[in-house]
């Protein structure tokens, strides 16, 4: 957890510096009230102090107390799995605007089931047709959501 805390503290520290610097572009006060730069400035200062505390604490903490607490970063198969899920989801978001929701959802589910979850092609395709069709009907006709359209108006 020490390493994770240190990374989180450093990211937050960078964010806090950015917040403070950016807040200086806005008025700090108006006539009677604080201006738009007031809250972001102080939030940046608070975040900076908390990040420094966490950083200091993670450096100071004894290793003995950390046994068994270290969080493993995803690696190997787990990392590949996560990467593929995110990649396929990003593909869904990108292509649904071009080929429409139904087709994009069908390909998305089929890819997840066949490539990631090792379903047989027939089973994967069958599940994809049923699930993407059901979601389309629910959102389009029951909830009247204006889904992205592609070919054939679907």
């Amino acid at each position: 957890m020490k390493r994770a805390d240190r990374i989180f503290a450093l990211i937050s520290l960078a964010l806090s510096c950015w917040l403070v610097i950016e807040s200086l572009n806005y008025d700090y006060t108006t006539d009677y009230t604080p201006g738009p730069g007031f809250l972001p400035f102080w939030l940046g200062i608070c975040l900076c102090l908390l990040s420094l505390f966490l950083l200091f604490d993670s450096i100071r903490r004894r290793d003995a107390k950390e046994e068994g607490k270290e969080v493993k970063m995803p690696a190997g198969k787990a990392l590949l799995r996560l990467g593929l899920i995110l990649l396929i989801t990003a593909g869904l978001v990108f292509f649904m605007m071009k080929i429409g929701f139904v087709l994009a959802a069908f390909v998305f589910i089929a890819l997840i089931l066949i490539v990631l979850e090792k379903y047989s092609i027939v089973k994967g395709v069958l599940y994809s047709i049923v699930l993407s069709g059901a979601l389309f009907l629910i959102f389009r006709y029951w909830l009247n959501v204006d889904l992205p359209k592609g070919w054939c108006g679907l």
Partner: protein
Amino acid sequence: MDILQSLMHGFSIFFTPYNLWMAVIGCFFGTLVGILPGLGPSATIALLLPFTFGMDATPAMIMITSIYYGSKFGGSTTSILINVPGEGASVVTTFDGYKMALQGRAGSALGISAIGSFIGGFVGTIALIFVAVPLADFSLKFGPAEYFSLILMGMLTIVFVGGKSIAKSLMSGVLGLALGVVGTDVVQGAPRFVYGVPELMDGINFVVVVMGVFGIGEVLVSAEEFMKMDSIKVPFNKLWPTLKDLADSTGAMLRGTAIGFFVGALPGAGSTIASFLSYGVEKSVAKHPERFGEGAIEGVAAPETANNAACSGAMAPLLALGIPGSGATAVMLGALMMYGLKPGPMLFHTSPDFVWALIASMFVGNVILLIMNLPMVPLFSLSLRVSYSILYPIIILICVIGVYSLSTNVFDVWVMLLFGVAGYFMKKYDISGAPLIIGLVLGPIMEHSLYRALALGQGRISVFVTRPISAVLLGIALVMTIAVCFKTVKMMRTQIGEEER
């Protein structure tokens, strides 16, 4: 209008077939997600939000609230049958519930947990009325200064009481507040942190963040590993606890209700702490505490009653003050605003029909849940056979479409995916997501109150301490902060002392 009259009025508004149907759907989904590990109530409420976009506030909130307390009903099922808690508040139920199941008493444990949940929820709702109404009347005295101090105190309490690491929870809260400043600023109406992106002019919608952090984030954590569940099978006819079980559990249920309600009403404490506390109390008052952990029925009755009573308790500050105490209630607060209601001290007075219909629905919802849970637990436990590999692509698709339908804009979906990755790391590294959501939802209200208070006080900051209620609230916040700092310094000194020795 006195309380009874208002409640009757609430029942008259609630009892339409549509509202009743919404309560049934909410209870059903609540129980289902309670049973399914890896999907908490915050994520489920967020996932089902898109289904309510076209609805009026009352049926929508009836459904959302019943998901919230329904999940506590269902949470015990997996704790008892497979030793895996469906959500945090049911962790403690595994101690004795699973032991009972191994001894062939799964039916009794499930039955007692359903009855306990019902008593906790029902009595808790009665208590909610008697706490929330005076609280709402008292809060009429609140001006912007008091409201600012209240939000500040509420947020600090949530972090100090609820979080595992106070520093990380505070940082999560501050980041939430920082996300809240994006968009059109409340003072000059000028764009702030927008960088020419028109989609950011209205700020970052809380649904986008909730779906990302709780929806996509949880999916990524769960999908990283395969989940396989082998459940202990329970026959339909063995779900009724014996009279002895009931007699043994009565005291535990009554104590669980009282503890659960009061702990739930405290911001940040929530149902998980309530269930652990009530378990501890039962163990300490028991004649044979050694039975606990070996299949004691009180060890199931007390926490299950307490976690449902805590849900009712948590509704008191939410409805009377507009202060959420947890991630799930923060999502509910955001939903209230989305439906055009103004949560806060005035809600009881500006929207009495809505508030009383919601309270009435909680009474009926608990009855629906008892009916659903007692005889139908074996049916619900069948849902454990649905493979997670089928479930998670559906969850991702609902998140994508839910966020897209907010403003039919794909920009929000990309932002959600970004928060999904952030949510994954937050969950992995034990950074609580609740303060982030609470900060995002309450941030703009807090900023608005701050500016209004200072404008009314002609720019004098003393306005926060010269008004007595505000001064008391700030005083409590200060005392809490000093206590936490003191404790942290003491802990550090002890550690340094140990190292030197």
